Each structure stands twice: as C-alpha cells, then as structure tokens.
C-alpha cells in the first residue's frame, strides 16, 4: 500500500484536571493569592520553596511554613526567544531558577527582561505580582520575576 493510502487523522486529549492540594501546597497557593511566598522548614532547618509536604532529598515530613522572598537570586537561566503555547509570557523571556531570600532551594519561574544580555546568573530579581483581584491561588499569580530595582 502506498504511503498516501494510509489514513491519518487528528486526535486531541483535553481535560481540565481538578487537583486537591493537601495542606502544604494549599497553604502556598493561598499565600500566592494573598501576595506572599511561603517555604517549608525541613527537620534540618532548611527552607524548601516552593514547599512540598516532604524534604525533597530525605523525604522527611516538613514542619512550619515561613515567608520568604519576594526577592532572590537567579541561580541559572535560559532564554526563550520564541515562547510556546501556555507559557507565562507571550514575548521573549528567560526561564530561571530563583533562590528567594530565606530559601535553601530554587524555584522555577520566568524573568521578564529586555534580552539575554540583561540576564546573568547571580543577578537579583523580585516577584512581579498579578493584580490582587486576578490572583486565584496559582503559580502564575506571580506574573514573572524582574530585575530588582526595575519593578
């Protein structure tokens, strides 16, 4: 059978998942909605951001939640010249791991910058929030990070 005779068709998988958060993720998302960033304290006293119910290395249960940021340091970054579907910004931006002040781990988010030349590891950035009325308890309640002092 010739290749042209093989049938092809589009196929879509589409669903809006509803994820119950549990106490720790729920507290973090509630914090975002209310304009603050929370981390979780591990038994060794490290602060994990964003917080999971468990230490990301030892799996031990985490304790108290503490406020961190909203500024921090870019530990590494990459430059998305062509943003893809559903990504946080529609103009070119940087992906970055940001270690917030008070945190011992870095979180993934994006940095709104003029271009790759404006980015460097070690640069300080701060969260740019969505307007309070638009925040719903979602990682995108932080619209992006921006270079500190430029907010």
């Amino acid at each position, binding site marked *: 059978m010739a290749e042209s005779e093989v049938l092809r068709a589009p196929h879509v*998988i589409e*669903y809006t*998942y509803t994820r119950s958060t549990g106490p*720790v993720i729920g507290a973090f998302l509630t914090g975002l909605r209310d304009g603050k960033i929370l981390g979780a304290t591990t038994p060794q006293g490290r602060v994990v951001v964003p917080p999971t119910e468990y230490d990301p*290395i030892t799996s031990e249960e985490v304790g108290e939640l503490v406020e961190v940021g909203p500024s921090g340091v870019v530990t590494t970054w990459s430059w998305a010249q062509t943003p893809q579907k559903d990504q946080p910004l529609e103009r070119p931006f940087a992906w970055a791991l940001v270690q917030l002040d008070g945190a011992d781990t870095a979180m993934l988010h994006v940095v709104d910058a003029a271009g790759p030349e404006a980015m460097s590891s070690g640069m300080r950035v701060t969260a740019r929030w969505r307007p309070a009325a638009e925040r719903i308890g979602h990682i995108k309640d932080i619209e992006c990070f921006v270079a500190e002092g430029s907010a």
Partner: protein
Amino acid sequence: MGQRTAVVGVGQTYHKAKREDVSIAGLVREAAVRALEDAQMDWSDIDAVVIGKAPDMFEGVVMPELYLAPALGAVGKPMIRVHTAGSVGGSTALVAAHLVASGTHERVLTVAFEKQSDSDAMWALSIPQPFSAPLLAGAGGYFAPIIRAYMRRSGAPDHIGILVAVKDRLQALKNPYAHLHIEDISFEMVRDSIMLWDPVRYLETCPSSDGAAAMVLASERVADSASSSHPPAWIHGMAMRSEPTMFAGRDQVNPLAAKDCAADVYRQAGISEPRREIDVAEVYVPFSWYEPMWLESLGFAPEGEGWKLTDSGATALDGGDIPWNCSGGVLSTNPIGASGMLRFLEAALQVRGQAGEHQVQTVRRSLGQAYGGGSQFFAMWVLGADKP
C-alpha cells in the same frame, strides 16, 4: 522463585470517592508511611522503590514516579514504574518481590495508587480513538457479555451475582479503610438497583475510588530480625501470565492465562487442593459475577460449578470454609491502580493476623490475585505464616 522473601510491612489509605484532603504525593505517602511504621523502618532503610498505577491519563501526569521519587524516599535509589492495566497493583508487588528474591535488594518499598478524582475514570478510559468503532458500552459493557456467556455455559441462576454483591458489601462494613460502607445493604437493594449493562446491575459493579496501598518486602535475613509487632508473611509462590486481548477461539470466560497463572503459583507453593489448602483469598472481583468465574479458573471449584460454592455460602467470612474478599474486595474499594495491590496486601494482613474485624481465624496460607485488560493479564501470590 529465588531467595526467600516476606512481607514485613503493610499500609493503605482510607479510600473514598474523592480524597480532597490530600495531594497525589500526600495520598501515596499516607500508605507508604503506614507501611514503614508497620515494618518499623525509616525512609533511609529502603533500598529500592517499585510503584504502579493504571493509565497516566487519570491524573494527567506522565510517568508520575519522576515527580513522586522524593515523596517516597527514592532519592538516590532505584525506582521502577510498572503498568499492566488493572492487574498493575499485583504485578507491581511481584516486580518488587523479584527484586528481593533475585538477591538484588533486601528491603523494597512497593506502592500503588490512583487518584481518580483528579479527572474522571469514565472519561479517561473512553477517550475516542481515531478510526476505531465508537465506544458503545462504557467500561462494564465489555465484561457484561462475557458474564452472560458464563451464565449460559454454567446454567448459574440470576441471583448469584446479587449474593456476591451483598456479601462483599457486608464484609466491607468490617474494614475501616473500605470506600463503600452501605450499612443497610440487602439482597433486595441489590436486586432492585438499576440494570446498567444487563445482566449487570448497578450494585453488582465496583465504585471509583481514590486510594493507595503500600508494602515493605524483605529478604529472609531482614525478615528474621524484623522488629514489627506482626510476623512476616512469607511468599510461597508468585506468578504472572498474559495472553492477547482477542484471538480466534479465545475462552474469554475462563482464560487459559488465568488457569496457567494459578497452576504455576500452586506448583511453587505445593498446593494441589486450593480450597482445602488455602485459608482465605483476596481475588479481583470488580463485577460480582467474577467471583464464581474465578472460583473455577483458580481451581476452587470444577468448571461450571463455581456459582454453587458462592450459593452455599462457602466464600463468606461469616461461616464459609474458604472466605473470599473479607475486606469487601474491589466491589467495595476500587482505586484502579491500587486495587490489585490491595488484594495482595489483604492476603498479607490475614497471614499476619492484622485484619482486625475482618480477620479469618488461624490463617496459615492466603491467596492474592489481580487481573487486568480484557481478562488477559494475571498476577498472583500465595503467602504463608511459615517459611516456604
């Protein structure tokens, strides 16, 4: 079967239609932490983690073991993800058991879960595929014609399915972890429930649950020195068998893979008369009629006579000589990916004397069985109180 291997810790979640109080990680940790506590072990004691679940579309997370590794103490360790359709919970336990039996590891944590309420199982199982015939019947529609074929072949009367549905729900009342607790369950209630897929009534089908199950499997050396307050449940036999979904002349009612799997596991365990030599069984019965059908495939009754055992009350916790699904079974609790492991886990609970109100007196040997796909994937183990 390799080196001696035992279950030294078990844990499960409280199962519900929607566990809206936990994240996916929270759900699996609830079961895993209970299993570790039972084994009196810590995350750091575990050498490897084997996790199983049914299709990733249920939660919309691809290969979720990657995300769950730190939630399950797997960082820096081997982690394996098993997927063998509905039998997966059983297969997962067996893959974990082989890691010990092969001498590869000494303490393996195995976990199975499903958080079906993150989506809708009916949706995930019936995503229309291009070019395929439109789905006519939903999930139960696949099995209902097979059940009809069993009824025709065996001459079983219509009320057998109702008896199983009532018995398993009554037994679930004695299991605090079970999803369905129907206090006023009765023959009339099942009989009068809506006929969903004639001949299968609503109350003759399983629910859709959120839940997780976990076990710690250990080598003989570890099991002998285990500090758990319950004795080890030793693996006396374990087997998996698969056959194609459809082929010319396939016996869908009593698949050869089911019989071969049973024959293999009994050979290893030295069992020739399962009904007499096994004290309690947890068998995957998602539609009530599968109890008489598996009674035959698994050799507890001659072909065509499984329903007579059910009819006589032989499979009831209360007064039966070979109680099946004392926990309430899949008919009472069905977090798909974990359902098979729950069968294996309940078999361990019985041998270890941990089953509480649904404990059978003096269990020397128990059977756990799971099946999946179109009755084509089978996993079984036989556990015993004594070393094999």
